[in-house]
């Protein structure tokens, strides 16, 4: 484009270099570089660059004029930028270029540039969002605890164009959202590299970087273990020598050997802590590695000085053991976090990990689900879960789709039907053509939204984050205080006490407590078919408040049932025969009841009259009238006192009465009602016992709502009927001091579910429900609500307990260390113990366990 803009006006420009080749002599197509190459091949280095675009210009000389342009286009751009007063652009650009040139290795630049290449990124390729931003998920190496996540998420806030970062500690991934216009993925990778973290694209096997980190930690543990074990026996020999006498030369040998081993331990596996501490210092962010690194350095310096001078203790046995224990603690934590993430990696729990793939020659082969591709054929035997989304290629069966839809009835599925991963094949073996696997499948997408709950910052997590930051600062200050207090007793002792304090006070357990508890609880809940989208709901449900139930479809089955209250059941089959062609709910209720009673309605019925209130027809020569009392009266049918009494009884139990008359005589009374769900009364009673207020918000007739409320023990003043969806929303929104929970259908109560403090959807599809409400009960059982409430308060209790345990551990530990009661060795043993105690508490705590 620059070349095309080049025209005769260039020549008229006084600032144009004198020896610039006139355009008429240069063909339009030739690039500036080729021009210069052909004319002055030996003077390339002396060519002056264009002020705007930095490309070489034809000008060759000692003092290039400023500004200098390679073409008219650049001049135009330069003048535009100057005109806007944005000339600092050029300074900024030069700075940015300088920054790039200062990168340590030239190859590094190329390495990060590949972060803009979709080929290299694979699954991590950024996805365009509707708001113009791009989002990508990447693996992060070098995460230790919540402080790292905090640092990265803060870095995102301070970087222009990088909107959000969500660190997923559980599986060591990072989700970034950035503006492709001002920020690139390579830039983010470069920035994080400077902070001490390594980004990598996620791979097909999300375990690949887990494996790498695991191997790295184990290798370090092996080296630290070797050093620690040998340093220990050398130390024992020295102590024994002190007691029973040892030759001075041997003593020196042992001390030097021990020092050497200790130095290896600090330098090789211990450098992890120094790297973390340096990153913390560079960004001025408190980090748990800081006190540890400080302790290690104080110990190393004192130990080396003592070893060389030949006086005092060498601390290297303690330091090697410390590095060893710290690494073991870190490995255990890493492993447990990964396991917790696996528990939430629900796909693994709900869909099978293996599939029976059919090869071209019709043999079958068990393969990992990850290796399945669209259009593969798999065979799913009866009783197995489907491993992937697909279309049935052969066979008929029935499926239990309750996980996705909440419907408890098995659904028939034939060849050509779509099926989803996670549904259970009930009756016969089927062949399925794979369409989507893993996170691409329907259940995979649902699980992703549940998983994102792990990264959610609940208020108590924020508290832990804030405390963690202060903690590091306070501990460092206290360590200096310890150094000062004990300095009177000698430098060695003071250094030992300060080292012990720094080590023993690591806030690791504090940072670990809450995220781990929430992750474990969500995972366990999901296994019990309770899908929770955000961890904050768990905390809200742990307090007490008011629970609003929707009636139809939530407390009741949502389908009316016609029960014979008076008279012969045979009239039922006549009524069903007459009403066969009606699509009215009453007609289908009567038909269903016929099926339930095992009656077969005759075929030759004829429907004659359909009016408001009832129908009239002929069945096997009998005149049949089905309807309410006014309709029967209008047809000239007189009801006996028994019939009228039965009608009254029906109204008493909140059932709509329907009368059937055969040949002009009313014979049977049906009560039409929506039966309560099983365990509705039990659930309500349990919830009330736990201190919750329970109410009904229903669109149904107030009288029916009142009757239902009476049946299941809900006080009448809390049973509201005749409400429109907007009225429900109004009631849920009413400012209340207590937590408001709405329990309803996923589909028709969406607004109220979303407006409540916590919405719980009990029916409908998982995708839709989880959009409206943070919790979806996929089991379809009302008792799951009790389980949920119970689990929430258990989780909340767990968080408080682990928090208290780790906080009091730290308080006591720091106190004892300050008093000089803890040696560095003991500190090394105590520190991982606090993390392990938090871990074992969390794993043993009965959240979402079967009662």
């Amino acid at each position, binding site marked *: 484009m620059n070349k095309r803009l080049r025209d005769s006006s260039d020549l008229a420009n006084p600032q144009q270099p004198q020896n610039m080749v006139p355009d008429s002599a240069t063909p339009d197509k030739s690039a500036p570089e080729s021009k210069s190459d052909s004319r002055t091949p030996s003077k390339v280095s002396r060519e002056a660059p264009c002020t705007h675009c930095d490309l070489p210009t034809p000008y060759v000389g000692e003092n290039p004029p400023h500004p200098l342009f390679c073409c008219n286009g650049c001049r135009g751009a330069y003048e535009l930028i100057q005109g806007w007063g944005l000339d600092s652009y050029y300074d900024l650009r030069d700075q940015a270029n300088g920054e790039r040139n200062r990168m340590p290795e030239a190859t590094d630049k190329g390495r990060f540039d590949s972060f803009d290449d979709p080929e290299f990124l694979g699954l991590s390729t950024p996805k365009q969002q509707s708001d113009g931003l791009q989002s990508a998920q990447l693996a992060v190496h070098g995460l230790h605890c919540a402080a790292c996540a905090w640092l990265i998420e803060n870095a995102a806030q301070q970087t222009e164009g990088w909107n959000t970062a969500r660190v997923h500690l559980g599986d060591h991934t990072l989700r970034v959202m950035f503006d492709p216009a001002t920020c690139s993925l390579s830039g983010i990778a470069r920035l994080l590299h400077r902070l001490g973290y390594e980004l990598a694209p996620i791979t097909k096997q999300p375990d690949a970087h887990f494996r790498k980190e*695991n191997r790295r930690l184990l290798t370090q543990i*092996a080296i630290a273990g*070797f050093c620690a074990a*040998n340093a220990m026996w050398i130390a024992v020999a020295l102590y024994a020598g002190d007691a029973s006498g040892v*030759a001075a030369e041997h003593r020196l040998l*042992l001390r030097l050997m021990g020092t050497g081993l200790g130095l290896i331990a600090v330098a090789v596996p211990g450098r992890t802590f120094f790297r973390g501490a340096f990153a913390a210092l560079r960004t001025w962010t408190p980090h748990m590695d800081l006190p540890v690194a400080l302790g290690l350095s104080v110990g190393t310096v004192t130990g080396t000085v003592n070893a060389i001078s030949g006086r005092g203790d060498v601390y290297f046995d303690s330091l090697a053991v410390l590095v060893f224990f710290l690494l073991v603690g870190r490995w255990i934590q890493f492993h447990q976090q990964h396991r917790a993430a696996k528990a939430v990696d629900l796909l693994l729990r709900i869909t099978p990990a293996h599939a029976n793939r059919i090869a071209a020659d019709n043999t*079958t*082969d*068990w393969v990992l689900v990850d290796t399945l591709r669209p259009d593969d054929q798999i065979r799913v035997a009866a009783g197995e879960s489907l491993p992937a989304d697909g279309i049935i290629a052969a066979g008929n069966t029935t499926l239990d789709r309750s996980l996705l839809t909440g419907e408890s009835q098995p659904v028939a599925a034939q060849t050509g039907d779509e099926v989803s991963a996670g549904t259970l094949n009930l009756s016969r073996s089927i062949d399925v053509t794979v369409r989507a696997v893993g996170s691409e499948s329907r259940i995979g997408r649902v699980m992703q939204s549940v998983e994102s709950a792990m990264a959610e910052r609940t208020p108590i997590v924020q508290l832990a984050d804030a405390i963690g930051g202060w903690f590091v600062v306070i501990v460092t200050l206290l360590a200096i205080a310890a150094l000062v207090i004990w300095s009177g007793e000698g430098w060695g002792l003071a250094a030992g006490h300060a080292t012990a304090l720094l080590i023993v006070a690591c806030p690791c357990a504090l940072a670990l407590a809450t995220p781990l508890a929430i992750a474990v609880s969500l995972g366990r809940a999901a296994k019990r078919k309770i899908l929770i989208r955000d961890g904050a709901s768990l905390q809200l449900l742990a307090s007490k408040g008011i629970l609003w139930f929707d009636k139809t479809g939530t407390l009741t089955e949502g389908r009316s049932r016609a029960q014979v209250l008076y008279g012969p059941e045979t009239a039922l089959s006549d009524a069903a025969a007459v009403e066969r062609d009606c699509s009215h709910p009453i007609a289908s209720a009567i038909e269903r009841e016929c099926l339930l009673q095992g009656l077969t309605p005759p075929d030759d019925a004829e429907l004659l009259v359909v009016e408001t209130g009832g129908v009239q027809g002929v069945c096997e020569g009998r005149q049949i009238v089905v309807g309410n009392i006014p309709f029967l009266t209008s047809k000239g049918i007189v009801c006996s006192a028994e019939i009228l009494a039965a009608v009254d009884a029906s109204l008493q139990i909140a059932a709509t009465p329907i009368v059937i008359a055969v040949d002009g005589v009313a014979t049977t009374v049906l009560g039409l009602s929506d039966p309560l769900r099983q365990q509705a009364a039990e659930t309500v009673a349990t919830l009330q016992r736990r201190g919750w207020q329970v109410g009904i918000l229903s669109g149904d007739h107030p009288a029916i709502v009142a009757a239902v409320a009476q049946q299941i023990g809900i006080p009448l003043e809390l049973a509201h009927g005749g409400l429109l969806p907007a009225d429900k929303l109004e009631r849920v929104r009413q400012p209340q001091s207590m937590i408001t929970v709405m329990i309803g259908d996923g589909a028709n109560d969406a607004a109220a579910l979303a407006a409540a403090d916590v919405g719980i959807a009990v029916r409908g599809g998982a995708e839709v429900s989880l959009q409206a409400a943070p919790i979806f009960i996929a089991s379809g059982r009302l008792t799951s609500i009790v389980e949920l409430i119970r689990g929430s308060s258990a989780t909340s209790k767990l968080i408080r307990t682990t928090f208290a345990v780790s906080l009091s551990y730290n308080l006591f530990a720091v106190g004892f260390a300050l008093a000089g009661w803890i040696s560095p060795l003991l500190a090394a043993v105590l520190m991982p113990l606090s993390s392990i105690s938090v871990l074992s508490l969390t794993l043993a705590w009965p959240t979402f366990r079967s009662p």
Partner: protein
Amino acid sequence: MSVLYIALPIAIFLGAAGMVACIRCIRSGQYDDMDTPAVRMLIDDKPSVEKKQTKDK
């Protein structure tokens, strides 16, 4: 006591050899997955039987 000058390096050397062996095991992936081997026995080995049968044919 001069045996110490020989015994100590030998002890360290043996320990280092053990460490190197351990690191080799870690690098080769022996410790990558501590959970699955325990569960692996529960996975049906029907496929291998089927494979054998097809091979026999």
